[in-house]
């Protein structure tokens, strides 16, 4: 058992790095995912994750697989998309989620085309699905920086985010901070996605953000505990995913996200607010009569 679960992390530095990166990502992006979900912005997270791709792809076109340019490119593209979607929904009748869906489909196809123009399929796979097992010092430093900015930001804006989610009209009547906090929050979302992009690629980084949050919603009824549980679910999935990918020689990103998905399905089925209990509650009185 020890050999199966612990030894790989003791013996291999690349696994240690991967684990460190994933844990940092889970801690910073789990709570962000919780707020995205509570604000009914899950699709926004998805769209922003895809929106990063063309930015990273253009950087790849000019600089190859280099961390700094691709990060900056991704960040710029993600922020641009966030602004654009917000502006379109404010200026037209189009709902924000519809315009986001449109933009991210455009972004995804543009990104893939740009990468294929220049690179190989391996490069494309790397950008889409990342490579947790190849995190170098530079990438780890970036993830650590994002972790610091994001957790500090969240702690600072916590009360405002809660107020804005809970009663936006009231919040507008007592404070002018609504719009700045909204944009600061979108910035944190993009930051975390760019961090996750290094490890999990554009397609999967949003998974580590949203799936643990969605799972945690089933178990607890307070925002704080929900964030803690989301972090825990993320870390458990990361450890399990890394071990599976190591032992079975499978790609690590998808393995991690699959475990996140497993926890989600389990939560749907077994949690106090999930199917089993809800279904039981609903049918019991009928049986009694």
């Amino acid at each position, binding site marked *: 058992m020890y050999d199966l679960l612990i030894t790989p992390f003791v013996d291999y530095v690349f696994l240690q790095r991967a684990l460190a990166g994933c844990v940092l990502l889970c801690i910073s992006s789990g709570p962000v995912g919780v707020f995205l979900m*509570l604000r009914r912005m899950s699709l926004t997270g998805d769209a922003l994750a895809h929106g990063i791709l063309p930015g990273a792809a253009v950087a790849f076109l000019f600089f190859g697989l280099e961390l700094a340019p691709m990060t900056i490119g991704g960040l710029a593209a993600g922020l641009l998309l966030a602004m654009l979607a917000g502006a379109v929904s404010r200026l037209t009748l189009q709902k924000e989620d519809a315009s986001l869906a449109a933009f991210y489909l455009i972004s995804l196809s543009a990104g893939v085309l740009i990468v294929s123009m220049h690179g190989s399929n391996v490069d494309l796979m790397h950008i889409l699905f990342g490579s947790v097992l190849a995190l170098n010092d530079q990438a780890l430093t970036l993830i650590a920086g994002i972790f610091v900015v994001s957790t500090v930001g969240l702690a600072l804006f916590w009360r405002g985010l*809660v107020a804005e989610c*809970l*009663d936006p*009209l*009231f*919040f*507008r*009547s*007592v404070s002018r901070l609504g719009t700045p906090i909204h944009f600061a929050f979108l910035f944190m979302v993009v930051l975390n996605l760019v961090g996750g992009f290094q490890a999990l690629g554009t397609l999967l980084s949003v998974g580590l953000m949203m799936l643990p949050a969605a799972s945690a919603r089933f178990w607890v009824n307070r925002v704080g505990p929900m964030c803690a549980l989301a972090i825990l679910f993320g870390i458990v999935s990361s450890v399990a995913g890394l071990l599976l990918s190591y032992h079975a020689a499978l790609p690590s990103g998808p393995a991690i996200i699959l475990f996140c998905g497993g926890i989600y399905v389990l939560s749907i089925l077994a949690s106090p607010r999930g199917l089993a209990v809800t279904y039981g509650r609903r049918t019991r009185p009928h049986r009694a009569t």
Partner: protein
Amino acid sequence: MSQHARHCDHAAQTEARDDAALRFRDLTLGYGDHAAVHHLDGTIARGALMAIVGANGSGKSTLLKAVAGVLRPMSGRIERSSGLRVAYLAQQSEIDRSFPARVLDLVSLGLWPKRGLLGRFRGEDRIAIATALSAVGLEGFSDRPIDSLSGGQLQRALFARVLLQDADVILLDEPFNAIDAKTVRDLVSLIHRWHGERRTVVAVMHDLALVRETFPETLLLARRAVAWGETAKSLSAENLLKARNFAEAFDDSAPWCEPQRA
């Protein structure tokens, strides 16, 4: 009361500045390029207890939103005496009842003006929250999730939040909609308490009997002020008829600067 006569006559409004909590000057409000409230002039005195009455769509909520500062005037302006704290209870609050919050979390939003984004909640705040909850008859509810409250209980909780805001001007938009008689009585006595504390209370109301009984002053609105003053006079049969005619005659597509006194 001469104070009430002044409200209708904006020529005589220069004196007694400090007595006014809010002053409307040729205020026009609306959405996009459609005006909903036209050319409103008048003063709300400090400590006034005022009802706003009017048909559906007559602009009552629009006016409160503007006073609360969540809607910008199309033209004209609202003057507030400096440092005025305003509490606003919306008609259809945009509260997300599925949000995982307890009654305590909802009510403590009322501490925002005092503590803001970063200020720590202190012992005195906890006492204030408990006092507010018991004032609205919700002792022991503080840990209940908000999605488990009935409509009336939620309204009581929102009144507790207003209490915590400790505001000079309290704006209530149809606070007694779908509320049972007992809860209405309890909440009306809170309104009387606020009035006794010299706070200014402005409430949008549909129950004219309750208005006559509770509010000394009334603004009758039909996209513009039909009458504004002593309740008995504002709600005279003649004025109510006038308001109804306005409501029916008003053409939605009319330009927003139609003559002020029709």
